[in-house]
C-alpha cells in the first residue's frame, strides 16, 4: 500500500436484485485527512459505507487497511470495528439515560465486571483531550445534541481507530454546533485519524474537507482536491453534466408573455419542516423548485399543501386570503399534491386501482355523498384509457402495478378532482423513460388548459423542458429564481453552487 494511505477500497461492486448499487468503485483515504463522500440520492454513498462497515457484504473488489497484510474481509460491524473502522451515524445511537462515561465504554469492557472508577477516569481524560465539554458522570441526555454527537465520536475514536465515518453528522445541528463539531474533526485529523465525511451541505464540505470523492449511479466519478474543484463543478459532477458539454437551451418566453394573473400567493410561509419563504404562481404557469437533495424543495411544496404542520405565513388563493392548515383545506381551494414518496404517502396499497383513483374526489364530495359504483367504474375506465395505465383490471390492487403505473393512478386521482393548481413532487422518479415523457407532455397540456403546475424533479433537463420559472433552493433557503433566457443547466448549477447571476 502507498505511504500514508490508511484505507484503500478497490473495484468495489455490489448488486441488489435488479439494481447495480456499486460498480468498480475505488476509494482512498489518507492518514489525517477529511474526505467528503458526495453524490445525489441513489449514487451509492450509503451502500459504500455499509460495505465498509460490514452491514452489507461486497460482491466484488478488495479492501486494504493500513498495518494489515493483504485484502481484508469485513463480514459484520464487529469485524469492521476490529479493523479500526468506526462509524458514527446520523441519528445518535447512544442511551440518553446513561452517563457519558457509561455510553463511551458500555459493551467494550473486558469481562463481566466493570471498574467504574477506572472507566470514569479514562473517559474524563479522553473528553479533556478532545476538548469535549461534558463530564463523565453527567447523564448523556442532559447534553446538547452536538455534545452527544461528539461523545459518540469520542466513543468511536477511543482505542485503535484508523477510519472514522461520519454519516450526515450535522443534519440536526445549528451553525454554532456545527463549528464545534468541525473543531473536533480538525483535532482528530491532527492526530492522524482518517475521516470519511458524508453530507449534503456543500458549504460544510468546503469548510472542513481536504478531498472529495464523487459517486453517481453507483459509479465513481472521480476524486478531487477541494482547492481544485469549484463548487459549480462539484454540482455538475454530482448531477452528471460536464460543464463544457452543457448546451444552452433557449426557452421560448412563453411564461412571461402570459397574462400574469396570480393564482396562489404565499408570504413568509413556513412549516414544521421548512423555513419561511415567499412563493407565487400564475394561472396556467408551470414552475418548479430545484436544488440538491435535502435543499428543502419537497418541504416547501408540502408547506403549500399543508402536508406538514404549517407554522406561519399569509396565503392568498385567487387574491383572497385563505387559511391552509391541513391537506383538506388545500383541496377545497383546488390544490392537488402528488407526494414524493409514492409508496409511503401516495398509494393505498391494498385497495383497488379504482378506489385509489376516486379517493380524493370522494373526499371532496364528502362522506355522505358516496360516488356510485357505476360512476366510479366509468371514471376509472376513462382514466385508465386516457393515461394508458397498464393494469389487469380496475379491481387489481394498486400495489401489484409497476411504479410508473402506480404514479399514473395517483395522477388520475388528482386529475379527477379538476384542480386549478397541481403540485407534482418527483412524479417521474423510478419510472421508465417512456412514461417520463408522457408525464411531461401531460403537464404541459394541463398548463395549456389553464391549470397551474409546480413541478419538482431531480433531473434538471426535465425541469428545464417543462418549467417557465425555476426557484432554486440550497440548504433550505431560496437562493435564486430563474426565468426565460436564464433557464440553462449552467445557470441552475451556478445558482445552486452559490455563484448567483
Amino acid at each position, binding site marked *: 500500500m502507498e505511504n500514508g494511505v490508511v484505507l484503500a477500497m478497490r473495484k468495489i461492486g455490489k448488486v441488489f436484485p435488479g439494481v447495480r448499487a456499486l460498480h468498480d468503485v475505488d476509494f482512498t483515504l489518507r492518514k489525517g485527512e477529511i474526505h467528503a463522500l458526495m453524490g445525489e440520492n441513489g449514487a451509492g454513498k450509503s451502500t459504500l459505507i455499509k460495505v465498509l462497515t460490514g452491514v452489507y457484504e461486497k460482491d466484488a473488489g478488495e479492501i486494504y487497511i493500513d498495518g494489515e497484510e493483504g485484502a481484508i474481509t469485513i463480514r459484520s460491524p464487529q469485524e469492521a470495528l476490529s479493523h479500526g473502522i468506526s462509524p458514527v451515524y446520523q441519528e445518535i445511537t447512544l442511551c440518553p439515560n446513561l452517563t457519558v462515561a457509561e455510553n463511551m465504554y458500555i459493551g467494550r469492557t473486558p469481562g463481566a465486571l466493570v471498574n467504574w472508577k477506572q472507566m470514569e477516569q479514562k473517559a474524563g481524560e479522553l473528553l479533556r483531550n478532545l476538548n469535549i465539554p461534558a463530564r463523565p458522570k453527567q447523564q448523556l441526555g442532559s447534553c446538547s445534541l452536538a455534545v452527544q454527537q461528539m461523545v459518540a465520536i469520542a466513543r468511536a475514536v477511543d482505542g485503535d481507530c484508523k477510519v472514522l465515518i461520519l454519516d450526515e453528522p450535522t443534519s440536526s445541528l445549528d451553525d454554532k454546533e456545527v463549528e464545534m463539531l468541525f473543531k473536533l474533526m480538525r483535532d482528530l485529523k491532527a492526530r492522524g485519524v482518517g475521516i470519511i465525511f458524508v453530507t449534503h451541505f456543500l458549504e460544510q464540505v468546503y469548510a472542513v474537507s481536504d478531498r472529495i470523492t464523487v459517486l453517481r449511479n453507483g459509479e465513481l466519478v472521480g476524486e478531487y482536491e477541494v482547492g481544485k474543484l469549484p463548487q459549480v463543478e462539484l454540482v455538475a459532477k454530482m448531477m452528471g453534466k460536464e460543464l463544457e458539454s452543457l448546451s444552452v437551451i433557449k426557452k421560448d418566453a412563453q411564461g412571461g408573455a402570459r397574462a400574469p394573473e396570480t393564482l396562489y400567493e404565499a408570504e413568509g410561509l413556513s412549516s414544521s419542516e421548512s423555513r419561511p419563504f415567499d412563493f407565487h404562481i400564475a394561472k396556467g404557469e408551470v414552475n418548479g423548485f430545484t436544488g440538491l437533495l435535502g435543499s428543502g424543495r419537497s418541504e416547501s411544496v408540502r408547506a403549500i*399543501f399543508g*402536508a406538514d404542520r404549517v407554522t406561519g405565513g399569509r396565503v392568498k388563493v385567487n387574491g383572497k386570503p385563505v387559511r391552509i392548515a*391541513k*391537506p*383538506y383545506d388545500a*383541496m377545497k381551494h383546488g390544490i392537488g*399534491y402528488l*407526494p414524493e414518496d409514492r409508496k*409511503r*404517502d*401516495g*398509494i*393505498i*396499497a*391494498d*385497495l383497488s386501482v379504482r*378506489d385509489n383513483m376516486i*379517493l*380524493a374526489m*370522494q*373526499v*371532496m364530495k364528502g*362522506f*355522505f355523498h*358516496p360516488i356510485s359504483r357505476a360512476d366510479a367504474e366509468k371514471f376509472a375506465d376513462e382514466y385508465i384509457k386516457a393515461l394508458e395505465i397498464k393494469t389487469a*383490471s380496475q*379491481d387489481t390492487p394498486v400495489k401489484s402495478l409497476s411504479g410508473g403505473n402506480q404514479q399514473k393512478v395517483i395522477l388520475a*386521482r388528482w386529475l379527477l378532482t379538476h384542480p386549478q393548481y397541481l403540485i407534482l413532487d418527483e412524479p417521474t422518479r423510478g419510472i421508465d423513460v417512456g412514461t417520463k415523457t408522457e408525464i411531461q407532455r401531460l403537464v404541459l397540456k394541463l398548463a395549456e388548459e389553464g391549470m397551474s403546475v409546480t413541478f419538482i424533479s431531480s433531473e434538471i433537463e426535465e425541469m428545464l423542458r417543462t418549467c417557465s420559472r425555476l426557484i432554486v433552493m440550497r440548504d433550505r433557503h431560496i437562493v435564486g429564481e430563474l426565468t426565460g433566457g436564464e433557464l440553462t443547466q449552467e445557470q441552475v448549477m451556478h445558482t445552486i453552487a452559490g455563484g448567483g447571476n
Partner: protein
Amino acid sequence: MKKQKRLAGLTQLLVPLIALLALVLFNLIRDPGFFSVEMVANNNGDPVLKGNLISILNGASELAILAMGMTLVTAASGGQDISVGALATISASVFIKVLRGGGAIGVGTILLGFLLSCLVAMAFGAFNGTLVSVFRIQPMIATLILYTCGRSVAYWINGGASPTVDSPIVTALGGFIPGVPVPTPVLIVIAVGILFALAFRLTSLGLYMQTVGINQGAARLNGINAVGMKLLAFIILGACCSVAGIIGASRLSMVNHEQLLLDIEMDAILAVAIGGNSLGGGKFRMTGSIIGAYVIQALTTTLYAMKVPSTDIKAYKALVIILLVVIGSPVVKQKVSHLWAGIRARRAGKEAA
C-alpha cells in the same frame, strides 16, 4: 370476465364458508335430523320455531352484532377492542336501571332505556377511541382499562348483585314477540345488518375506514380525517355493545354483571379473524365476520349436541379454531394456490400434448 371478478372477491369468504359447510355436513351425517325445524307452541301458547338451527341463529346474535362493530375497529385502527363484553354489561345495566325507574314498563320506557344505554355506550366507545386515535395508545392496551373496570362500573349502576325486571316486553325482546315465530334477537341482528349495509351504501364509511387502516399518512394527504375515522369506528362499536348487552339482559330479564357476555370479546375478535379479515387492519369484509360468528356458535351448539361436558367444550373449540386459523393463514393459502397453479399447468401441458 365479470364472473371471474366476483369469484376473486369471494376467496376471502372461502374458509369461513367451508368451515360452516363442514359443520353442517358433519352434523347431518351424525344426525340427519339435526337441522330439522319444527313449529311448537311456547309457554304462552304462541307458535314458535324450534330446533338446533334456530338455536344457532339465536345464540349467535350478540356475537354477530359485536363482530360487525369489531370489524370496523380492526379495519381502521389495526387493533382490537377487548372491552366489548364489559361495555355491553354496562349498557345492559343502564337499560335495566331505566326500566327499574318505577312505574309501568311500556314501549316508551324501553325506547328511553335503549337510547340512554346507547348514548352511554357510545360515550365509552369515544373514550376508547380517543385513547387510540388521539393518544395513539395500542387498541388492546387502551381498551384494557375498560375491560378491567367495566364490570365494576356495571355493578355500581344498579347497586345490587343481579337486578331483575318483570315485563312482557323485555321477555319478548330476549325471546319471541307474540305471533312472530322467529326469535327477536335474530330479527335485531338482521336490522343491525341492514343498518350497516345502508351505511356502506349511503356513505363512504367502507372506503374511508380501509384507507385509514392501510395508510394513515396517505389518508391524511387525501384530506381524510384519520383521527375522526378511528374515533367513529369505536363509537359505532359502542352502539353495537349496547344492542348486544340489551339482548343479553333481556334473555334473562336481568343483569348479572359478572357473567353477562363473559369472554365474548375473544369470540368477537375470533369471528373477525375467521372471516378472513386481517387483524392488522385495512381491507375488510363484514360478511366474513358475520359468517365467522355463526361458525363459532354452530361449533358450540354441535359440541353441546354431542353431549360434550361443558367443562371440556372450550378445549374442543380450541382444537377446531387452531385448524381454522392455520387453514386461513397466508402461508397455507399461498401453498394451496401454488399447488393449484401446478395442477393447472400440468393439466394444460397434458392437453397440449
